[in-house]
């Protein structure tokens, strides 16, 4: 029987890699390595990474609410210093199983048969998973960057459905879940550069307590105002929390890093 052995949240801020202001960042890059070690020790065989498209992969002709690529993977296609566009170990059969379970459970997930992933998936896949390809990745793209946004409760319920899919898998697998996203950040708006540590703490507190209610009761307007349009990515954290209900968390690193524009939080969520 398959089971979830751990959950993580982490950012994918491109500026952390471009590092235009040449700021100290080893401790942040180190947080990815710390998670990679934890994933290795957990014996994980599969990873599901929840991320956003930033209007790079999907154009105005097809904007999905949820999308799972079911083919081979590589990325990030938007290459970053230290994070090249290279193959990502995939498992089309597992991806198709999740799509089938989603459809059967009333989630109308779109699919991609051929997709190079962007930094939202590529950064965690390349930095937080073992480099030997032993952990096969399934990405889940959620509409967190382009409206209409996935509803918060729906993001949480999607995670619950994924947890159910894993519990019902007839084979032995150990799965880690990754919510990929910055906390507060403004992208392409006049506020860009602002980081709201108060919002970031509120989000991290929910992850630590394992109680998603305060996040689920926010409106999108509140998130936009306090966490920016980038803050809409908390949907990815909610998906992980939905799959690990009542799982308490631990913050591994947090910084309102002045080398970039994003509240950077790394945390672990343990199964209850």
């Amino acid at each position: 029987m398959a089971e979830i052995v751990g959950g993580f949240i982490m950012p994918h801020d491109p500026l952390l890699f471009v590092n235009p202001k040449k700021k100290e960042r080893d401790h942040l890059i180190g947080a990815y390595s710390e998670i990679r070690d934890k994933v290795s020790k957990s014996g994980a065989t599969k990873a599901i990474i929840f991320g956003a498209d930033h209007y790079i992969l999907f154009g105005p002709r097809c904007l999905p609410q949820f999308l799972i690529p079911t083919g081979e993977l590589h990325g990030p296609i938007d290459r970053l210093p230290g994070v090249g566009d290279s193959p990502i170990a995939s498992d089309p059969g597992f991806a198709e199983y999740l799509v089938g379970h989603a459809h059967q459970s009333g989630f109308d997930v779109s699919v991609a048969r051929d997709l190079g992933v962007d930094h939202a998936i590529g950064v965690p896949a390349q930095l937080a998973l073992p480099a030997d390809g032993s952990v096969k990745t399934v990405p889940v793209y959620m509409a967190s960057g382009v409206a209409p946004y996935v509803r918060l409760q729906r993001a949480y319920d999607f995670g619950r459905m994924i947890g159910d899919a894993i519990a019902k898998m007839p084979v032995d697998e150990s799965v880690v879940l990754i919510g990929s996203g910055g906390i507060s950040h403004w992208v392409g708006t006049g506020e860009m550069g602002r980081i709201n540590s108060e919002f970031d703490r509120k989000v991290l507190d929910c992850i630590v307590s394992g109680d998603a209610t305060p996040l689920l009761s926010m409106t999108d307007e509140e998130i936009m105002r306090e966490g920016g349009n980038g803050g809409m990515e908390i949907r990815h954290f909610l998906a992980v929390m939905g799959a690990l209900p009542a799982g308490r968390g631990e913050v591994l690193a947090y910084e309102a890093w002045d080398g970039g524009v994003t509240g950077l939080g790394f945390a672990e969520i343990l199964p209850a």
Partner: protein
Amino acid sequence: MSFGAVEQLFYDVSTKRNSRAAFREDATAFAEKYALSELERDMVLSMNAEGLFEYGINPMLLMGFWTSVNGPQSMPDYLSRVPTLTSQLETVSE
């Protein structure tokens, strides 16, 4: 409104090398391939970041378009022009 056509143009310029080159070479001719209203065409051709933002173009896409055309070093210029998200939220909630 033909809002979607503006986003399609921006998407093409941001993500496709050929489209980027074509827009840089002759923006007016490039824009003619998209069903833009007169207002939209004017905003696109004049790179009117403020107007396009207020019109509702996705800010990530707008920034991507701007820096595709003007280069990454143009970011400060872009940010000095683009309105805040908060100003838009206030418009909506009024």
